[in-house]
């Protein structure tokens, strides 16, 4: 009953056709075009990958496929034909009758997009009953069937939980199930795996691939990760600044990209460092344990960071990486073990540490948006540590600030700006400059590139490497991204559930034989090869069947 018959003419295989789509966004200056005339055709059962950095307009185009423009945006031109009707001129009520039934949407963060006040299955049932597709009891059975198909654990009961009681990867699959509720003709996937760990990402990708193929649903898959889109898409459109850069069959685009920009995207993550000389240890962590209340999150972690080198800590979320950073910085007192810095044992809490020690260890956070005070100008942000740690004032301070801005490849002109006027990459550079202002010996980088686009992230990594060569500063680099580790680490520490499972020089860690968990982590990183997902699933199924 929920199986919709194909309403359009069976000979006409095109599900969605956009011609000259233009979308404008509002800023202080007025309306600015953010999508500049995009043509797009999608056939039944076809998966189209939209790829580009943030600001490329890919999400905006995806939402326009549902006839929706975010507040502050408006569709200003072109036609979007779906089943013979132009989505750009349909009334809100007519659009409402298409949304959820014939065109569905899977959002980037399932955790934010599920209503926290309702049970997961109720939100599924809502879609089905809202449009009169079926009654609630049938919809429930349907939900359970889809949960099972998407390989969610406990499909019978998982829907009775609230969104906060389910993990991110499971929630993302529940959202795919919800999108499938009415068997739509078209699903828009808006970066559905960007917020997930590599190990979880595989499961979600595989689930999406299966349902899209089995139900012959057309899909628009939006992502900034070429390797991800390579697994799913039949065709790829590369976008930049709201314009089409290149379009073609997936394999062709990956193997023989025409546009220079596509080649640049393909090459990102290729920045590699060459080995450096190992000096004395600046940071030594010995058998450190830590806990939040009663739950122990770090178990006897030991590692050391040599002067002027980079130690990368890898692991999925929940592995205790960030907790270790909190222990080293003194934000969280450890419950056992010792942390020695430059031969001196560090007191567990920040309060007991001298200001010299605090100066010598600096932290750069994951999200520059929240770690910079939006009400302070750049000169205040940079001036504060200079005055506080080095007693600088007046002209000397100004000179030093300009020098710092030059180091992070921003100019003096930025001194008077507020963080809100900077791009994501510029903000993160500013955070690095703020850390540098203290003249530290060790900088702890907590996922500093994971909120950034690939090209911007590569710029940040290059900057960090250059600064290390010039200043001999050491990095404790926390990340879940293997490509980043390959690019910048000297030593690698693999963490899993609060324990170190493997550690050593990068060359050794990345060369087999690996520890089982490292193997899993490495193998989960999507490769550009379009057959990668199928291959890895076969190899993972094989031992289970034998």
């Amino acid at each position, binding site marked *: 009953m929920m199986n919709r018959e194909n309403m359009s003419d069976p000979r006409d295989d095109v599900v969605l056709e956009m011609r000259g789509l233009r979308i404008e966004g509002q800023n202080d200056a007025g309306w600015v075009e953010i999508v500049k005339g995009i043509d797009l055709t999608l056939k039944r059962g076809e998966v189209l990958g939209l790829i580009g950095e943030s600001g490329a307009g890919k999400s905006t185009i995806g*939402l326009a496929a*549902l006839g*929706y423009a*975010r507040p502050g945006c408006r569709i200003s031109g072109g036609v979007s034909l779906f089943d013979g009707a132009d989505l750009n001129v349909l009334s809100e009520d007519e659009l*409402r*009758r*298409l*949304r*959820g*039934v014939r065109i*569905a*949407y899977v*959002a980037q*963060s399932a955790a*934010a*997009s*599920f*209503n*926290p*006040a*309702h049970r997961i299955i109720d939100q599924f049932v*809502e*879609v089905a009953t*809202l*449009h009169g597709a079926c009654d609630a009891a049938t919809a429930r059975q349907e939900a359970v069937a889809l949960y099972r198909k998407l390989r969610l654990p406990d499909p019978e009961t998982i829907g009775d939980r*609230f969104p*906060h*009681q389910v993990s991110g990867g499971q929630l993302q699959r529940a959202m795919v199930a*919800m999108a499938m509720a009415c068997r739509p003709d078209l699903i828009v996937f808006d970066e559905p795996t960007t917020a997930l760990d590599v190990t979880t990402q595989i499961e979600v990708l595989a689930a999406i691939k299966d349902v899209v193929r089995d139900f012959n649903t057309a899909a628009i898959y939006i992502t900034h990760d070429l390797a991800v889109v390579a697994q799913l898409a039949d065709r790829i459109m590369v976008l930049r600044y709201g314009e089409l850069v290149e379009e073609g069959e997936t394999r062709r685009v990956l193997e023989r990209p025409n546009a220079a920009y596509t080649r640049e995207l393909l090459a990102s993550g290729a920045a590699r460092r060459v080995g450096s000389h190992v000096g004395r240890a600046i940071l030594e962590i010995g058998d450190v344990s830590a806990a939040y209340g009663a739950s122990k999150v770090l178990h006897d972690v030991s590692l050391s960071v040599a002067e002027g080198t980079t130690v990368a800590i890898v692991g999925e979320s929940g592995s205790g990486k960030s907790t270790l950073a909190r222990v080293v910085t003194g934000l969280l007192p450890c419950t056992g073990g010792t942390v020695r810095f430059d031969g001196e044992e560090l007191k567990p809490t920040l309060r007991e540490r001298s200001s010299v020690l605090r100066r010598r260890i600096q932290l750069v956070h994951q999200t520059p948006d929240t770690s910079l005070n939006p009400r302070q100008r750049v000169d205040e942000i940079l001036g504060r540590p200079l005055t506080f740690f080095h007693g600088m004032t007046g002209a000397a301070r100004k000179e030093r600030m300009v020098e710092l801005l030059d180091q992070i490849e921003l100019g003096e002109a930025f001194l008077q700006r507020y963080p809100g006027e900077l791009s994501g990459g510029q903000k993160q550079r500013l955070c690095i400059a703020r850390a540098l202002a203290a003249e530290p010996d060790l900088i702890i980088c907590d996922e500093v590139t994971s909120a950034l686009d690939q090209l911007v992230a590569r710029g940040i990594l290059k900057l960090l490497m250059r600064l290390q060569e010039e200043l001999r500063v050491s990095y404790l680099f926390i990340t879940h991204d293997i490509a980043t580790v390959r690019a910048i680490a000297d030593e690698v520490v693999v963490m899993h559930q609060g324990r170190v499972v493997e550690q050593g020089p990068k060359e050794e860690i990345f060369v087999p034989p690996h520890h089982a968990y490292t193997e899993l982590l490495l193998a989960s990183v999507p490769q550009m090869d379009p057959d990668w997902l199928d291959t890895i699933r076969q190899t993972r199924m094989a031992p289970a069947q034998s």
Partner: protein
Amino acid sequence: MGNILTLVLKRLALGVFVLWIVSLIIFLGVSMLPGDVATEILGRSALPETVAAFRRELGLDLPLHVRYLDWLSGLLSGDLGNSLANGRAISELMGERLGNTVFLAAVAACVAVPVSLMLGLLTALYRGSLFDRLTNLVTLTWMSFPEFFVAYILIMFLSVQLGWFPSLSTMRPGNGFGEALHLAALPALTLTLVVAAHMMRMTRAAIISVLASPYIEMARLKGATRYSLIVRHALPNALAPIINVVAVDLAYLIVGVVVVEVVFVYPGLGQLMVDSVQRRDVPVVQACSLIFAATYVMLNLIADILSILTNPRLLYPR
């Protein structure tokens, strides 16, 4: 559910502590006022000997701390004491007054809460429309006037010119419900106008802030109707702030009525408290303030419990 029980117990204990502090402050505050019940009753011209004798009779010659401990021990054994001014038991004196005040508050709440929640929802739903702007303007205007001014305006139009309601709300024990309602209409309307604006604006703000969440966008993209968007998706997530505002305003209806009661000569607790302060009748003032403080504590506790019950994240921890 265990965490709710601990919360209730903790808050009740804290509430008792608050009441004790309140009683201490009120006691000290009233005794710092010039004069006492003896001088107030006997007048300025009374002979010093008469005043001294009267004081001895009432126990006012005892030191401050002895009088306070006396009162406290009486309270702990369930005795609120007697009025200094007329010797009647305070429990008896207050019973009827408390009933009147609660009646007035209830009438005002029955009108104010549903109306302001509805208006809040509707203005959020049609944000930016003429209806929204007009409602905001009118409620904001009412809110900005002092309540005695609102009261006199209502008396002027509804009582003096139209003659629909009495300007003096002299409640008597024998009044029937309809009659009581008629008498309490104007003070209730005044209170409604004063608190409704606050509740409506907070409801509107809470709903609007929730409307910016990704799950609301998701609901729109699922094809949810406007009604379902507000009532099913936004309202449950905006309940906590709304409940808290309603609790504060309900408490205000009990506690903040002093001025309104005085204007309409309504025989409620507020009126009694004002009179008693004038007469320096400390035990009565004490009892009134304790009831007011207890109202605040209880309503806030109820609001907190409701906030937990309506939030699955608190009700069902991971």
